[in-house]
């Protein structure tokens, strides 16, 4: 297939340009062209949430976005969650709460949680479970993930006040 396209966008605050084929997904380009392999591939059909990124403020599964669709967008990936060399509240809460076992779903959960707390800084347990229902985890049974999200929301509220 010929006819590569140039796509220009912002990734984690940096202006980025890449060449891609029309059939390439955003997930493939993030991982293969931009070496941002923190975004994981679990199913490639939008069912597992491991590849979640925030695109123009909205969480999307990057396996269902074509790379060319990202033209002009502002993207935040797991690599853009930490603040410099400091983990943010969500990452710290996952670590301290042992909310990960194998860790493959963790980037997707953390990014989805960032989107949740942006929309709803004080979510109930039901809010959390509903918002994260598109992210699959097979190791934890979700208990410690939900508690970590609660802890992160609380930490962020404390920090804000």
């Amino acid at each position, binding site marked *: *297939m010929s006819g590569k396209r140039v796509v220009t966008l912002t990734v984690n605050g940096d202006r980025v340009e890449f060449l891609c*084929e029309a*059939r390439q997904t955003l997930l*493939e380009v993030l*991982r*293969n062209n931009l*070496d*941002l*392999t*923190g*975004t*994981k*591939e*679990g*199913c*490639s*059909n939008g*069912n*597992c949430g*491991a590849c979640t990124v925030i695109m123009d403020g909205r969480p999307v599964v990057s396996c269902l976005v074509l790379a060319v669709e990202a033209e002009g967008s502002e993207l935040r*990936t*797991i*690599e853009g*969650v*930490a603040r410099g060399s400091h*983990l943010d509240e969500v*990452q710290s809460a*996952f*670590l301290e*709460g*042992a909310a*990960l*076992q*194998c*860790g*493959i*779903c*963790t*980037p997707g959960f*953390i990014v989805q949680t960032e989107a949740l707390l942006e929309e709803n800084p004080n979510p109930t*347990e039901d809010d*959390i*479970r*509903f918002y*994260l*229902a*598109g*992210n*699959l*985890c*097979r*190791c*934890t*049974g*979700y*208990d*410690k*993930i*939900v*508690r970590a999200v609660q802890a992160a929301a609380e930490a962020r509220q404390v920090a804000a006040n």
Partner: protein
Amino acid sequence: MATAENPKYKVIGTRPVRHDGADKVTGRAKYGADIKLSGMLYAATLRSPHAHAKIKSIDTSKAEALPGVRAIVTSADLPAQGDRIVELGEGAANMRHLTANVLAREKVLYKGHAIAAVAADNIHIAEEAIKLIEVVYELLPPVMDVRKAMAADAPILNDDIRTASVGSAPAAKDSKPTNIAKHFLFEKGDIAAGFAKADVIVEREFDTAMVHQGYIEPHNATALWNTDGKITVWMSTQGSFSARQQTAELLKVPISSVKVIPTEIGGGFGGKISVYFPPVAALLSKKSGRPVKLVMSRASVFEATGPTPGSHMKVKLGATKDGQLVAGEAWIAFEAGAYTGSPIGPACMCVFACYDLPNGRVEGFDVCVNKPRTNAYRAPGSTHVAFATETLVDEICEKIGMDAADFRIKNAAKEGVRRVDGPVYARIGMVETVEAIKNSDHYKTPLEGKYRGRGIASGFWFNCGLKSSASATVNPDGTVSLLEGSTDIGGSRVGIAMQLAETLGITAEEVIPTVGDTDSAGYCDVTGGSRVTFATGIAAIEAAKDIQRQLVERAAMIWEVDVAQISYRDGGVHGPDGKFLSFKEMAGKLHATGGAVIGRGTSSAATQGGAFGTHCVDVEVDPELGKVQILRYTAAQDCGTAIHPSYVEGQIQGGAVQGIGWALNEEYWYDERGEMRNATYLDYRIPTCYDVPMIDTIIVEVPDPQHPYGVRGVGEVPICPPPAAIANAIYAAVGVRMHDLPMSPPRLSAEILKKK
């Protein structure tokens, strides 16, 4: 937890942050699919569209002609294996079957069976090339049901399989081939006399569907076959040494020619022990002269890796009216999938394992069907049989009017009880887990409301010991670099590091654990069988003791006294006249006292005692839709000694939720052609966080005397009780007994309708 209740420990029982945590919450951790090497090619796999067919011919010429295609392999490139059986650490494999599963030879035995692979400049070219390979098939009738596959006139999958019955004479080579690959029989006491004493006998038939481990990370492997003949494989695997051996055996090269570098691994649960990709990637690399990466699609993970069998079971239990179990009988047939190897042996040994059963008979069959070759899945075989036995126990309790917890306590297996398969139990904690549930706030709180019910069930798993090793290097700043070969799937680095820290009297943070590759770490069997915290833990403790011995020798030199006057305790060396040097002080004198101190330890002699769990669940059933909502869940488990309670809880919670998925939703759904119709996460519905509540855990600690700190493996037991506990709760809620898994809305609503 343990520090409060076990003041003798300083590190064990605390909850330090895992050493690999920062990498895993920032996306820096490297998993198998993240590997990128210079000049790397991407490969795709051609898979059978048919469940059962002969391969008449394979023509790859059009694919070879596609620009960007660099290499193609088929089974013709893999060496013939003959009738070799190879011991792989956690079980033996028939190499003829293993190689045919990697790339099909004369026949395809399930839809998705790999046939050929193409390496190309990018994945899209490889996928286009796959479509250009022409395969001519001769279709054969598929056999998808375990009982039909056992029939005398069933289509036969493998012409080299005769029934192997443990303890029977081997079948003659010229006898008729069969789908029944294995047969087991266990007997204890006199079941006729036992059932004659029973006031209540219940006998039911059960069917359970094939289910998958469902790890989120698909299988992957990247291989480089170098010009010096050395093969390097980067992959996510539960056992790098097992993967090395399988790869070497499949390629018929010495194991020293293969180096497996284990990446981080995104879940396994038993499904990432068998090798699929490494020999294929290696051959593609040899042909192309470039490193080659293979990553499996989600559909192929479902269709062509190693799920756990579907089953058909007939189980019968008898008890007296005062609640004494007197006899039990079980007939169990498991779908092995395409080749022999279901966990039917352990299933037979688990079916009555929770109880002191005076008279028992268990018969089991391993049966080939046109489904993927099954593999281990968390307590292999035990969940199936727990579903049967534990629902029968519930029925007996109802008939004799006895509390389900009291019945279990009265009949529980305990130290000194002889199992139906023969051996006598050492110290175990079955009674303690039932008592923990009986005394829990959950069990003591009445459940109210229409269509609501509560159920309990117990479960058992053996836990393995097997072989592990570790080495530990003292650093001059008082830390220790720990090298071991057990791939870390759920936080085992920190659990092993904590045991080393406890033994040396330093903190968990002062240990720096690394999972090594097969050329740097000592041999370790797979991360499976709930064995790593136990066995690699023992190896780390031994390494720490080796360090202690060396530091005692150094202190003797410093103090100019005999080593017999020095002991290592409380984090340092103690000499005569109150002399003391801490571990850190000794580490600071490393270079002045003779250089490096490296401890080494191995573990191979210890075998674990069994582990038990008891779960309690409240459900609400929608009587119209047949949908089951889990309202409350509590799991009690004997963990021996909890090293890192957070990860112990996490194993219990994760296992329970996998069990909930198995109970309520998950199944391989095949059509009459033998095609799996739900090979996506959307349709093969594993639990989401919206499906389950918090999972409360009760850690029961009955130390295993075989481990210095009393560890029992934790990972597998918690998947066993949920299907039965939920079935019992459904009965309490709506009065129907479920005998098939999953208890999905269509099945449950049909049963509710029948009752009306």
